[in-house]
């Protein structure tokens, strides 16, 4: 669903390319070609040695098979130092060479060019948040320009994660309590898959995102528009802005009435609005504007019975106006989407 909406954003109408052949995704970043060269260099060395070993093994098994119980080994040499040194030294030279070209390729990957476009990345179970310098912010979509180096400055709010874009050959752990960086330069506009590669719990396999690579001009335009997107809404129609902010909630909440993920469906909250609900700890609380705001900014305060208090706080992650938009959105959910989660036009 996400990808379909994205495709309309991109003039090319791109699909995610899975690459040809048995090995490796397409080469979509500037350094991926060099990495693949190293990969195939090692690959053919491995094929050579593997075929050599297995061929000799089969040949010997066939040629020197035991024909009878009195059959004796035809060779009694028990060691041959020059020969053994040969098969010590040749692999040694090869691995030194492989180490060297591997190091050479790696140095390119860890040195971002000085003029790189910076994006802040915050990982939080099971969601990625991408923050641009001008204030534009996305989750589940990393928007970057083609043909310009991009540097990601990343940190985690909870446990270890890793940002992995296979088509770019780029991967870096995202660690709580420190910043790690990653850079790449996408060659062509298009859509690429982004994964979380470090195990982070329940929805690890759903902690993905799409990398949308735009032509540079279009990118500048889109990011500028993104930064001001909330200004397009007046106080009267602010509730409609919630649908877009919802992307950041969608890994744990659903807009379908029947679908309960880690957290409640938003329809449950909407339908209970103005009523009392039983909370964990056996007390009742009003479901009102304050309750919704607290659930976003201080989620451990009141936890509805039968749910676990696993929601992280969005204090600082959402601007006050965005929080207001969410409160209005939940109150007036029936004006925005139907009970299957489809937008009402």
């Amino acid at each position, binding site marked *: 669903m996400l990808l379909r909406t994205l495709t309309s954003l991109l003039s090319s109408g791109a*699909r995610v390319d*899975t*690459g040809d052949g048995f090995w490796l995704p397409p080469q979509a970043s500037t350094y991926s070609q*060099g*990495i693949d060269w*190293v*990969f195939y260099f*090692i690959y053919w*060395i*491995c094929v050579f040695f593997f075929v050599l*070993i297995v061929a000799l*093994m089969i040949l*010997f*098994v066939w040629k*020197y*098979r*035991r024909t009878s*119980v*009195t*059959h*004796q080994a035809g*060779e009694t040499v*028990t*060691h*041959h130092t020059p020969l*053994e040194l040969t*098969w*010590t030294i040749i*692999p040694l030279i090869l*691995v030194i060479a492989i*180490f060297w070209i*591997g*190091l050479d*390729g*790696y*140095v390119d990957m860890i040195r971002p060019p000085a003029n790189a476009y910076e994006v802040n990345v915050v990982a939080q179970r099971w969601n990625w948040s991408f923050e641009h310098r001008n204030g534009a912010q996305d989750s589940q979509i990393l928007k970057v320009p083609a043909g310009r180096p991009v540097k990601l400055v990343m940190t985690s709010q909870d*446990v*270890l994660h*890793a940002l*992995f874009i*296979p*088509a770019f*050959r*780029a*991967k*870096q752990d995202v660690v*709580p*309590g420190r910043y790690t960086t990653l850079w790449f330069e996408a060659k062509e506009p298009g*859509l690429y*898959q982004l*994964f979380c*590669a*470090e*195990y982070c719990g*329940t*929805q*690890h*396999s*759903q902690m993905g995102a*799409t990398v949308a690579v735009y032509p540079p001009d279009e990118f500048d335009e889109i990011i500028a528009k993104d930064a001001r997107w909330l200004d397009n809404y007046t106080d009267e129609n602010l509730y409609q802005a919630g649908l877009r902010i919802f992307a950041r909630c969608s890994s744990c909440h659903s807009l379908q009435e029947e679908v309960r993920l880690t957290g409640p469906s938003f329809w449950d909250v909407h339908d209970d609005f103005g009523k009392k609900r039983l909370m964990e700890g056996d007390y009742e609380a009003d479901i009102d504007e304050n309750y919704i705001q607290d659930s976003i900014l201080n989620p451990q305060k009141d936890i509805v019975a039968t749910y676990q208090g696993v929601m992280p706080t969005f204090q600082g992650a959402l601007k006050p106006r965005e929080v207001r938009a969410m409160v209005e959105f939940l109150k007036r959910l029936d004006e925005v989407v139907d009970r299957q989660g489809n937008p009402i036009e």
Partner: protein
Amino acid sequence: MTTLESTPPTPAATNYLTHTRGFLSWAFTLDHKRIGVMYLVSVLSSFLVGGIFALLVRTELIAPGETIMGQDAYNKAFTLHGAIMVFLVIIPSVPAALGNFVLPIMLGAKDVAFPRLNLFSYYLWVFGAFFLVAAIFQGGLDTGWTFYAPYSTEDARSGVILATTGVFILGFSSIFTGLNFIVTIHRLRPPGMTWFRMPLFLWSIYATALIQVLATPVLGITLLLLIVERVMKVGIFDPALGGDPVLYQHFFWFYSHPAVYIMILPGMGIISELISVHSHKHIFGYKFIAFSSVAIAIFGFLVWGHHMFTSGQSGLMNAVFSAITFSVSIPSAIKVFNWLATMYKGSISLNTPMLYALSFLFIFSIGGLTGIFHGTLATTIHLHDTYFVVAHFHYVMMGSALIAMIGGLHHWWPKMTGRMYSETLGRIGCIIVFVGFNVTFFTQFMLGSKGMPRRYHDYAGETWSPELTELFHTYHFISTLGSYLMAAGFFLTAGYLLHSLVKGRKAPSNPWGGRSLEWQCTSPPPHDNFSSAPTVGDCYDYSVLEWDDAEGGYRWREDVPHPV
């Protein structure tokens, strides 16, 4: 040279199985052979449990979407599969189970140096396993077998304390076994068995024991720190308390990388025996093989950082660890070429153990060579934490270490049980396991290189591009079918082995034509192994043996004078 006089005069009269009877005679036994058998039964039972979890994991992945279990159940299943297979199966399989049985007999000794410590190790294993299993019932464990912080130190992970306590105890079992073997090899070698006359299996067990004794305490300390952090909220690994999660990884891999060699080295030792005995030819390049085991043990301590290439450690550290990592590949390469040279101009019988040894050569070549992609910095970044790694370490830990263990089990089965299994079924079982294994895991190399991350419950959903889902589905489907085939092979193997206990032909003393000392006691060996310490010659010189039709095994040649 070896004496036949050293074996007891009436071979069949009594053996270690019939020496004493009753449950308590096993529960309190100090006999290394019985302890070895108890380990074997425990390890193989754990293998069954770990294998069932593996099949659950593979079945969940057969199709996109939820197939048989939800996300949390899947995370518990792969964690338990990993933890059980590593800590309860592979690490103790060769040293504690086969090593316990074979090592003292190979040395011509009556027992290990410390028989009581040996029994204590076994009960520590049982105790540790109990804690690990308790973690399952207590609500499960979903951290992965690596227990990475700060995920593992969160309050919600209630199984972690039990499980790490279990692993901590299992660690001591491993340390005591290693210590016991080191002392046994130093002190109990018979007259004439110099270091360079020991069977290569003993060299590999010795190198392994060094790692066990030196590396396992670090794991113990690390897990203890984890427990301290969880219970007392002292900030060690959790940044929220002022700790550093990358420090945990350093501590953990400082043990767990050498532990990889605890798993593979004894397997390599078995292969050296199997290939030489079943090729009826002297091992080629004894000293190179022996020293390569020691070299692997030493280098193994210096390469832990290659598990952390994307962890955020500096580029310089990555470069250093990459360079040292390659040093491990050389001794492994030496062994492979020496094994091939051993087969050259030999007299190769394709018995079941030899088929396993050949499977090992095939699989280990792939497992070892694909390690190069992971040691090379440019390629490892892309492949890290994908199925390419999963495939690689299954080729090494399962396809090599465990296949070698099963090969060794078939090799020494007649000695341990006194029964021969069906050769035909043995060969069929080996081929099914071999094919199933490669179908399961070779596809995972392609899957990983295309970008499929490991430890994923699913490969479809809101954030997934449908093109990737479709591609990954094909590979996952084939891989799961392969795992079913492999399981069928293992069940067949279990079937004929159990059947042989009841209906198997009685085993001769020396069914394969082995020259090391264990083939000179009866099958099964008597309680004391040897009545007096035997003297030994070249344990790879097979020219003194000949086939004896009456016994269905090999015996000392009539025309070669018995050594005194």
